[in-house]
């Protein structure tokens, strides 16, 4: 049973709409990752945090995607203006340190119609 909690499990949006998903990392894990998994099983790293600070993020994330991990609140990933190509499984993961194999949540499956 995963201890990384992601909500919602499913998200359906129209093109141009905002899409927001949340993640509660494993207790005691200061490092949080967001990955996008497409239907071809390709994983794309989006962003990672250590506590509330961004460690790395890809260029795509800097444009339409935004993410945060505020203290004492769930982490979140938001797509400002959804596109059909954003349809994917978004996976949150957490880790006690940056270079260890993280634990993943069940994911949020986004469908952009």
């Amino acid at each position, binding site marked *: 049973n*995963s201890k*990384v909690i*992601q909500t919602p499990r499913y998200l359906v949006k129209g093109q141009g709409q905002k899409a927001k998903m949340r993640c509660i990392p494993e207790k005691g894990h200061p*490092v949080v*990752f967001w*990955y996008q998994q497409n239907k*071809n*099983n*390709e*994983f794309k*790293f989006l962003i*990672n945090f250590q506590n509330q600070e961004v*460690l*790395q993020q890809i260029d795509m994330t800097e444009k339409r995607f935004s993410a945060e991990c505020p203290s004492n609140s769930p982490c979140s990933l938001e797509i400002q203006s959804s596109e059909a190509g954003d349809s994917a*499984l978004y*996976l949150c*993961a957490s*880790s006690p340190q*940056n*270079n*260890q*194999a*993280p*634990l*993943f*949540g*069940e*994911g949020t499956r986004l469908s952009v119609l």
Partner: protein
Amino acid sequence: TQTVSQSDAHVTVFEGDSVELRCNYSYGGSIYLSWYIQHHGHGLQFLLKYYSGNPVVQGVNGFEAEFSKSDSSFHLRKASVHWSDSAVYFCAVTGNTGKLIFGLGTTLQVQP
């Protein structure tokens, strides 16, 4: 460039058979190697990892993997599979940046 290659897209075995899922990687520095399992419609479940020490590591549900530096491999094995082992298996490398580099996965189908 860090890469992970899983040479078999699909593997089909019968319940009770042994299985080996292959993983080869290329990376120049210190790394974590790990395996994850993904059942249909779910997230990734951690199976096992290797960083140093004994090259054979034990994981959950009877899985083990063996690290080979000479072959740049980290193959996953199970002596006797169960139908519930049917899933997609991902091999991953964690480099010093902390990001996971995944293979494209191997779909394991266990027939009764």
